[in-house]
């Protein structure tokens, strides 16, 4: 598990990457070598010397640009879609003083989705970072809900980069081969990922997540975590809804002040001495009304941060549910085993412990032959052996799951506390800036009124 200081450093790195613009455009490709499993293992071991090393330590990643493309979709119809440029550079080369051009490839949103689904299925005990929203939601009136809107595309680009950085800095996820291919192999990647057979697992996962079953001995910590994830989901979505309405109203307040600009201008034409002061004040009112657009656009960044955790809550919930499922399977296997053992005992001793229909019919219609009983017994023995194996497997599976999931949930909790604190600070800073601008404009207007 990464130490807090490492995480902070990575977060800082992430923030810096986010703030920096697109990388260089010189040309010097990274070697497209594929890492074998052993090599990856070695890499992991080697780099484990430096605690908590991840892909991001070795490679600079960014989603530099977005472009529109046209193409045929699955039903052979023309469509317009957006592709995003992923750029990567080895950090070694940079620190050694070279300045290689980044490797790059284009990916569309749906490919990111495939990658994420693969990760969800392959690492069910990890709270997998979410993608930015597929469609614009929680929009306030003036913002468009259009996926082609340039502001939306830009925010999505940032969100996709954020996703990659989070995944590439995760102690477990960052070592995934498919992830590496996603970042480096433009064309064959889809085939490779489908070859893993994750799609089938993905389908059953979805079924499992929505299934209802009762766990006899739930792990309290996971139950609490699941409950928390529900709260987080409900609260963040409520917050986002209300925030959008607040933004709407604030927009209205500012824009109406623009009318003052017009009427002051008209009025100033009627006046002699008061004219200049009025006219200038009117300009300030116009500026005031116009200022709200930028301010609210900036606030969208805060909304995006909240959205990320809205979706994170879903991922967290899935981890808890998967635990429940695993636990349930273990319990089912255990009780199956117990009932099989009981059956064996009954057959062996002839004593009926539990009521069974078979037992009743036997009594009514006559017992079976010794040969039949022998056959049944040996079958049961086999099943019991299998059952015991299954129970052992499931127990191990459960224990490992719990271990891995608990570690990642703790990591997630710390990350969440950090990120949301930063988000709140950012929000407060935005509000402060807005207040200062307000004071400035009205002070300017006041000076103009004074000169009337």
């Amino acid at each position, binding site marked *: 598990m990464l130490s807090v200081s490492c995480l902070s450093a990575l977060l800082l790195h992430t923030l810096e990457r986010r703030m920096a613009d697109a990388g260089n455009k010189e040309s010097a490709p990274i070697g497209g070598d594929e890492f074998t499993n052993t090599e990856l293992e070695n890499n992991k071991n080697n780099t484990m010397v430096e605690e908590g090393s991840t892909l991001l330590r070795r490679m600079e990643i960014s989603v530099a640009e977005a472009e529109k493309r046209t193409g045929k979709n699955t039903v052979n119809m023309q469509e317009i879609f957006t592709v995003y440029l992923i750029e990567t550079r080895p950090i070694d080369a940079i620190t050694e003083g070279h300045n290689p051009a980044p490797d790059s490839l284009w990916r569309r949103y749906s490919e990111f989705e495939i990658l994420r689904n693969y990760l969800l299925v392959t690492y069910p005990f990890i709270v997998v970072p979410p993608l930015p929203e597929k469609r614009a939601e929680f929009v306030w009136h003036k913002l468009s809900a259009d996926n082609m809107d340039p502001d939306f595309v830009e925010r999505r680009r940032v969100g996709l980069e954020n996703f990659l950085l989070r995944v590439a800095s995760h102690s477990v996820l960052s070592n995934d081969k498919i992830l590496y291919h996603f970042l480096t192999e433009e064309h064959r990647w889809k085939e490779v990922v489908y070859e893993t057979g994750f799609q089938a697992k993905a389908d059953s996962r979805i079924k499992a997540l929505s299934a209802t079953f009762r766990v006899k001995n739930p792990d309290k*910590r996971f139950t609490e975590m699941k409950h928390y994830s529900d709260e987080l989901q409900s609260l963040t979505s409520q917050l986002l809804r*209300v925030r959008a309405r607040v933004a709407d109203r604030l927009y209205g307040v500012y824009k109406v002040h623009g009318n003052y600009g017009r009427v002051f201008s*008209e009025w100033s034409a009627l006046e002699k001495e008061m004219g200049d002061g009025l006219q200038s*004040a009117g300009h300030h009112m116009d500026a005031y009304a116009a200022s709200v657009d930028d301010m609210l656009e900036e606030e969208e960044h805060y909304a995006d941060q909240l959205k990320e955790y809205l979706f994170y809550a879903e991922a967290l919930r899935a981890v808890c549910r998967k635990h429940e499922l695993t636990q349930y399977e273990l319990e089912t296997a255990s009780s199956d085993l117990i009932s099989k053992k009981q059956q064996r005992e009954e057959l062996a001793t002839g004593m009926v412990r539990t009521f069974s229909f078979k037992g009743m019919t036997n009594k009514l219609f006559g017992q079976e032959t010794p040969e039949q009983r022998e056959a049944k017994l040996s079958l049961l023995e086999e099943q019991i052996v299998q059952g015991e194996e299954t129970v052992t497997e499931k127990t191990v599976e459960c224990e490992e799951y719990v*271990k891995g999931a608990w570690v990642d949930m703790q990591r997630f909790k710390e990350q969440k506390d950090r990120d949301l604190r930063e988000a709140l600070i950012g929000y407060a800073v935005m509000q402060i800036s807005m*207040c200062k601008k307000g004071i400035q404009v009205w002070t300017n207007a*006041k000076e103009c009124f004074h000169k009337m």
Partner: protein
Amino acid sequence: MSAGTPKSLASSGQKPIQEICHPLGAEETASVLTPSPDVGNTITSIGGKDLSLPNGTPVETSSPASSSSHLNRLQLDDDLDGETRDLFVTVEDPKKHVSTMETYITYMVATKTTRVEFDLPEYSVRRRYQDFDWLRTKLEDTQPTHLIPPLPEKFVMKGVVDRFSEEFVETRRKALDKFLKRVADHPVLSFNEHFNAFLSAKDLNKRLGLALLSKMGESVKYVTGGYKLRGRPVEFSAMGDYLDMFTQKLGTIDRIAQRIIKEQSEYQVELREYGPVYTTWALSEAELQGPLEGVASCMANCSSALDELTQDMSEDFLPVLREYVLYIESMKIVLKKRDNIQAEYEAKLEAAAFRKEEKASCTQVPTDVEKCHDRVECCNADLKSDWDRWQNNKRQDFRQLLTGMADHNIQYYEKCLAAWESVIPLLRDKQPQETETEED
């Protein structure tokens, strides 16, 4: 004007009027009424700020803090050709009176003066709206060529407005105060005998009877005079045009201000739902609990700051704006009266010329015509000087009004800024990490 035991206001559990901290509160009133060396001489402002209306209306009549420096703010207005101020009038201390017949509000009218036309240097009388209305009518009748400042609206719809609410009474008091100050400020109107009576008479009703009824008839004639005007001097046409356009602008500003208040209220509604979500969220969190609650309380502060802004605009801004529309109406009436006087003169002049043709000598007619001519000249002169004065006052009033609007907004943003700035250290301050629970 009996002062029965003042009763508390019944409506909506608001504070009784006499408990309201008034701009000139009890202590202040005493200091205003006792003759001091300052009052009666020219007073320059402290700090050189042009803060007040010509007759010393304080800028912030609503905040108790400013009232303590009320006297300090009285200032010689440079635009009034260096007049020495020797008459100070204020309207304060509204009280509710309940009798079997009716319930009404009276206001204390306090006067300080060194003028010889007054018997005493100080007066303190109680007047009700009716009395102000009487005064205005009398001034209109006796000074037909002058612009009389307007009164606040007489009638209020009983269902819509609470006549005894704190806000309504205070708004009205401010307007009445302004009315008297404008009259006291006027070089001609302030010497009017009815104004004197209004300020000084113990019982106004007695003197009502002696009304100069004869003059009443004339005023009616002036307004409804059936003479047709031939050639209005350009300057008066220009005045009329200006007033028309200005009224329009004021109407627009009024609508905008109302719209802003409405939008702010709707913003407020959403804001009131927004903050509490953070509070609810805080309950589910451990380390984030402090920051989230901090944000929630910050928003609550911003919300109440917005309340204050909206209220200030409703109480300070809109009424003054509306009162100016009334002022303009009065001005238009004066212009019309002037037109009538001129028309009358022109008609008489024409008639005289016609008669002169018929009879060779007729001495009486020219005198009559001359009188009319004098009246016209007088009226024009009065009107011109009143117009200049009005323009000046208008400039000052709007400067004050708009500056006040800017101030209210600045204060609002300053309050919000303070709230958000104070929450930043709370957000940054990390609590000591809790120890992790053991894994299974």
